[in-house]
């Protein structure tokens, strides 16, 4: 009897203990998210939440397909970490004029900002942005699923200055050629492999059919004309600046020839090409008005989106053609950087947002929502018709000429040099100046800028 009571009491105690354990065991509840993530993500987020829940982070961004993709990734970050994210989106054309004014102030109202290849050297030398190497090396802040090694090295390099990393690239761009495969098949034409072929094809298709023009490329005065022209300069064997002697080389015959070629190419564009920014060049192709688009690879997802493009599924892609001197393809793009003047106490929270937005973990969602690729893994899957052309162009970006092209942007005067070159290139396109006169003026103006650095 005594034994039975003892056993019954024991069983009751065990049951009560199990129940207490079940109901009162401290547990981590997974926050509600749109996507289910691996457990380590929730664990990482919990640690961030403990420290930074209730914090608001403000991002200075530009209107760009990647910004829209980031906005899709943001709600889950907010649920996981309790951090609120506020986006301030500027037009691309005026972004740097505004941001320069803001980040040079003592108190910067942005915790995070978009930067790009052209401004990183200048911003780094003026210490307007902070190096992120320490955050990257910290395994607790930067988990495995961030996948740093999956980022394409060419894109990572453009966020570097003086051996330090100043941001994480998120919208890598190279220049490539998109062409209307239906028209090329109809007229039995092959996609261009050289500059000469590109010009010939532009001529051929220009006004071949009603409302059809040869080529679309950005030519706007702000900085876009310079972007387009430099893409051809180095392939011609020309250069903007001799980096060893710091002397401008705009008057070299090769550089002048490249501008002549570029001006000639724009003659086979739609009316108004002289003021085309990226959006307009892109839109002209998407609406089926041009046969060839020479543009940034950022244009590709939009071309293949049937909701946005009339030519989706009718487009072929090839790497940027070869010039008389060889292959040269620039690598540009956007990155996320932390302004030096931003509040220091929020930096770890800011870094967690960078990790979240640019991680390998979220890359598929980012790309599905219009984000532009900077990682190797999605490109290697070859899911999109343009992936091969991007990989080929990235390979071409390793050529010596391409490397020389990219170094032009490492000059501390690259920001103002681009402004001057773009303005004069635009005047050459409109016929206000001959290519020779434009190059002569570029040489004089850039010489003035370079003098103090010799």
């Amino acid at each position: 009897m005594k034994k039975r009571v003892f056993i019954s009491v024991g069983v009751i105690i065990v049951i009560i203990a199990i129940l207490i354990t079940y109901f009162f065991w401290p547990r981590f509840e997974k926050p509600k998210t749109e996507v289910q993530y691996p457990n380590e993500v929730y664990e990482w987020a919990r640690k961030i939440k403990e420290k930074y829940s209730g914090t608001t982070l403000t991002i200075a961004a530009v209107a760009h397909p990647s910004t829209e993709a980031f906005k899709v990734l943001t709600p889950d970050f907010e649920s996981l970490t309790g951090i609120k994210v506020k986006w301030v989106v500027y037009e691309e054309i005026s972004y740097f004029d505004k941001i320069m004014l803001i980040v040079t102030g003592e108190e910067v109202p942005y915790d995070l900002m978009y930067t790009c290849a052209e401004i990183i050297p200048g911003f780094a030398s003026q210490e307007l942005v902070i190096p992120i190497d320490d955050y990257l090396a910290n395994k607790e802040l930067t988990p495995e699923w961030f996948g740093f090694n999956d980022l394409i090295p060419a894109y990572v390099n453009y966020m570097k200055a003086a051996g330090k990393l100043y941001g994480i690239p998120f919208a890598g761009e190279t220049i490539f050629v998109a062409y209307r495969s239906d028209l090329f098949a109809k007229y039995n034409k092959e996609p261009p492999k050289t500059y000469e072929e590109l010009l010939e094809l532009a001529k051929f298709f220009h006004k071949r059919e009603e409302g059809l023009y040869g080529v679309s490329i950005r030519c706007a005065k702000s900085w876009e004309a310079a972007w387009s022209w430099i893409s051809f300069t180095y392939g011609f064997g020309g250069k903007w600046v001799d980096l060893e002697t710091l002397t401008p080389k705009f008057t070299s015959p090769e550089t002048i020839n490249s501008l002549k070629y570029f001006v000639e190419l724009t003659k086979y564009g739609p009316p108004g090409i002289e003021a085309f920014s990226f959006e307009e060049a892109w839109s002209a192709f998407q609406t089926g008005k041009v046969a060839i688009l020479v543009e940034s690879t950022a244009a590709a997802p939009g071309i293949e989106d049937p909701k946005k493009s009339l030519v989706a599924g009718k487009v072929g892609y090839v790497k940027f053609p070869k010039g008389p001197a060889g292959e040269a393809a620039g690598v540009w793009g956007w990155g996320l950087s932390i302004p030096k003047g931003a509040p220091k106490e929020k930096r770890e929270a800011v870094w967690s947002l960078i990790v979240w937005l640019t991680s390998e973990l979220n890359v598929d969602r980012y790309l599905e929502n219009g984000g532009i690729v900077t990682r190797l893994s999605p490109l290697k899957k070859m899911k999109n018709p343009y992936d091969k052309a991007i990989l080929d162009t990235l390979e071409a970006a390793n050529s010596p000429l391409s490397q020389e092209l990219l170094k032009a942007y490492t000059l501390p005067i690259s920001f103002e040099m681009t402004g001057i070159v773009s303005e004069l290139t635009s005047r050459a396109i409109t016929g206000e100046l001959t290519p020779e006169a434009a190059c002569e003026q570029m040489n004089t103006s850039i010489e003035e800028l370079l003098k103090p650095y010799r």
Partner: protein
Amino acid sequence: MSLKFFLKKFSKKYYPVLLILPSLITVLILVAYPLLISLQTSLYEWTYGTSWSQAKYVGLKNYYWVFFGGDYLFYNSLQLTIIFVIIQVLGSFIIGIFFALLLDKLPRGGEIITAFFIIPMVMMPSVVGLMWRLYFTYDGFVNYFLEIFFGIKINWFSINYALIALSIATIWMTAPFFILVFYAALKAIPQEPIEAAQIDGASEWIILKDIKLPMLKPIILITLIMRTIEAFRSFDVPYIMFGGGPGSATEILAIHINRVAFSFRQLGAGSVLSLFLIFLIIIMCSFLIKQLRETWRF
């Protein structure tokens, strides 16, 4: 002299000055101080994005650079600015007075119609710029109608037409100001001289020329002064529509100042250009103010 008498005399003499003082101090802080800073900056070589401690005193070098050839677009910008201001102010004025006279002739409903004219005035300039940029695209709204009525399409983004397109957009935005002001002024004109002239058999044109316009002269001059200042300072719509391009087709002084100061990062030269623009506005407006004074004296 008793203290009471002194205070009375003092307050009589200086009371108005005391009343003006707060406004005067505000103006000095908000206008004179930035002007003095601009003047100081104009004597320095200061790269945008660097601290003031890195700026280097260069005397009149920036002035020399702007006025004597270093700034190769300055005279072109000046010429464009003057053309743009004349087209914009005259265009808005002519349209304004024309519609105001038409509205004045309406027996009723003028007030309701004027309410519609307010729409372009209240729209944000950046929206106006974007809207007209889209209207002027080759397959846009403007060319659509040009093709229907005249069978032509114009490349408004070319060097020959960009300034015209810009002027049309700014006239659209600024003409309603003239319409509203002139319409209100016409309504306020005393009817007796007009009726007397009508009894004497004066034509509509004579009444307009010899009675209405002379009576409107002060208001015309004031609106012209205001619009001229605004036209010289135009930045938002030109910047959004063309950003000074294509080439240098729309690079008016305000855009050029922005380019020199922020794209070329020469804040000293940008200050020289800003001071020059202020000087230009003062010269142009002092001429109009002189005219206005003569009208009031008369």
